[in-house]
């Protein structure tokens, strides 16, 4: 493997850096939303339909 990008390094590494940050970021965001939705539904189901009727 060769990581020596010569004079173009100033364009190549920011492009890779931004891409990596964006893709990792949106993956974490997507997983966090999933966990939140799962936890919320579990809490609601645990409370049961009768809990709020009283």
């Amino acid at each position, binding site marked *: *493997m*060769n*990581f*020596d*990008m*010569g004079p*173009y*390094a100033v*364009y*190549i590494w*920011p*492009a*890779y850096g*931004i*891409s990596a940050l*964006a*893709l990792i970021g*949106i*993956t974490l965001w*997507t*997983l966090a*939303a*999933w966990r939140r*939705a*799962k936890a*919320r*539904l579990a809490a*609601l*189901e645990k409370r049961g*339909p009768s*809990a*709020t*009727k009283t």
Partner: protein
Amino acid sequence: MNFLFRYANPHEFMRLSGAVLPFTAAATLLCLAVGLYLGFSVPPDYQQGTTIALLFIHVPADVVAELAYGAIAVCSLLSLVWRHPLADTAARAAAPFGALFTALGLVTGSLWGKPMWGTYWVWDARLTSFLLLLFLYLGYMALWNAIEDETRAARAAAILALVGVVNIPIIKFSVDWWSTLHQGESIVSGKVAPVYLWPLLIMMLGYVLLFLTLWMVRIRTAILERRARNLMQAN
């Protein structure tokens, strides 16, 4: 169509996507790892030098940007014609990913344009139609958020998505129809040397798999959110 409807109900979707997700996630990581390894092992291009490295992240982002829009358009059509509720959910879920990949295509392209063309941006047909794609995504998401009634929001957003489809062939053929600074099509016509083509195809597959994986997770999230809402209303 029967096939589609059998698997496109929320319950079946949860079951199927749950079974498929570990594999698409693993395949995504594998493709990206192999693609990056191969991508950083290529010799410099005789014209573009080391900036050929940008090929492996620029083109895959563009491909997913257009693929996600196609996915939204197909789901919108399913929603408008067959009134399938999961189609709306799926269409809406794809939009943020499409917008992000479009932005990445623009940014990586811009950082490639500076050393090769001497400018970060030029209003040529390819770049302009691609920027329009980003605005279409943003408008689509804004429309969903602007209308409170979900059925009406879904309808309006689906119509916008279908009208915007006209931009996809414009992006594709912009380099043929107009004289653009952006280079012409080179992958399907076999103008990319195999040493660059393989890392590119593997990275492309990795990006597509990443999109599909995230899209499924987001549809699943929306289904759980709807169940929670229904529970709240039932109480």
